[in-house]
């Protein structure tokens, strides 16, 4: 199995001196769903921004799909769903996907085909001509998933993907991610919702105060059933502090 993400001793310090990430060493195999868990402010979003090349690490090495994330050609194989679903509210979902498709270098025909396919997958097929400003939070999250999947990326980076989704939409999202895994996609999944991670992830990493406290298969974290994932998570976090 080849590695989708490899980071060695990755650190990031913000200009104000706050250390967002400290000495993170991690590898994620291709085709797995990796859950990145941690309390608010643990450094999950900082890590994601480094994986996307939005920020440069202050120390350490990082390779995503064998390339540097600051290179556009590396990002051509990455799909990203941000934590807060903010898109251009003056566009319709069809126009939004046309715009992002053009940025991905896709042909007009390919964009149209993928738009229909993804709209059906996320249940937005009747909303293609509705301006995004009229979308609910859950619908925006589904629109976000469409833009992340538009160019059929090999690696999906999802920042709190279940935010704003009702139970039915969560179940649909889980189904979509399961199918993506079956298609061989790698999914990097950041969350503080342990139940979601327990259901979906092959492996998890627990981040606290910018440092990786634990990582391994989800079943190892859940243990033999004598303690649930939440208790184990709290134990790791308190030991880390």
């Amino acid at each position: 199995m080849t590695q989708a993400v490899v980071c060695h001793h990755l650190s990031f310090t913000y200009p104000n001196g706050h250390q967002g990430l400290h000495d993170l060493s991690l590898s994620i195999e291709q085709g797995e769903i990796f859950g990145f868990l941690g309390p608010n402010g643990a450094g999950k979003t900082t890590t994601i921004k480094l994986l996307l090349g939005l920020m440069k690490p202050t120390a350490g090495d990082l390779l995503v799909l064998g390339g540097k994330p600051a290179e556009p050609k590396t990002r051509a194989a990455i799909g990203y769903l941000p934590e807060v679903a903010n898109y251009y509210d003056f566009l319709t979902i069809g126009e939004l996907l046309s715009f992002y498709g053009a940025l991905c270098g896709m042909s007009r025909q390919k964009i149209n085909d993928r738009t229909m396919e993804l709209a059906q997958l996320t249940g937005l097929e009747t909303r293609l001509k509705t301006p995004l400003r009229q979308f609910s939070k859950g619908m925006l999250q589904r629109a976000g998933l469409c833009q992340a999947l538009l160019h059929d990326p090999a690696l999906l980076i999802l920042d709190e993907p279940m935010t704003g989704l009702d139970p039915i939409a969560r179940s649909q999202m889980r189904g979509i991610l399961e199918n993506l895994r079956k298609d061989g996609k790698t999914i990097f999944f950041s969350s503080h919702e342990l139940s979601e991670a327990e259901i979906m992830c092959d492996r998890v990493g627990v981040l606290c105060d910018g440092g990786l406290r634990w990582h391994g298969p989800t079943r190892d974290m859940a243990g033999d059933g004598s303690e649930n994932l939440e208790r184990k998570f709290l134990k790791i976090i308190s030991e880390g502090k």
Partner: protein
Amino acid sequence: MGKIFAIAKLSVLELFRKKDVYVAIVLALVAIVPLAVVNAFGIEGAVRYIREVALLLVWGFSVIICVTTSARQIPNETQRKTILPLLAKPVSRAQIALGKTLGSIIASWGALAMFYGCYIVIAGLKSGIWIEPVLLQSVILHACFAALACSMTVCGSLALTPSANITACLLIIAGGLLFGDHLPDLINKAPGLFRPPLIGLEYVLPRFELFDLRARVIHSHAPVPAGVFLFILLYGAAYSAVFMGLAAGLFKRKQY
């Protein structure tokens, strides 16, 4: 180029769908159109008077549109966090900066086309002369000025806060248009200590007054010689390219 045009198209679409540009255009038209019915004192100089007022309004509103639309292009993306999915796409920061600049230039040109269309009709109705060669030169140089003002403002938006950038750009552009002609005199008359910074300003800041042919249009003077006209166009293009390059460099260094 496709990616740059996609970003530019989005910027233009936003400006027109959010109706920001319409406010300035409607204000300008409200101010210019009544001039068509003015028969100032029933004397022969009325046409000149109308040309002067109309062109002043066209220039004033175009400066406002150029600066205010360009200043918000990239800061708006950051503020509403649409910058994150945008930067996550396979597009370089230089392409984004160029696309945003091009978008504001195209929007400004659209506004200019409307202003000059209106001006040509009003002045034509009054004088019976529709498009003189000097007016054509004036419109082309004005478009070049708009490109330069937009490039400078987008570049400034990556170094300053939006309000500081708008203030600085409006001051530089208005200062250049109003007092640029007098700068060499000012340098000659300035005491020794003040001379170097003034000379620095003269060489570093673009000479916006070069693009302003209003006086020639108002007084129906002959067009500028072709060589001079081309030189000014090249000068504007070169300065715009420098500002776009600076913007790309500044944007590349930003961390999100």
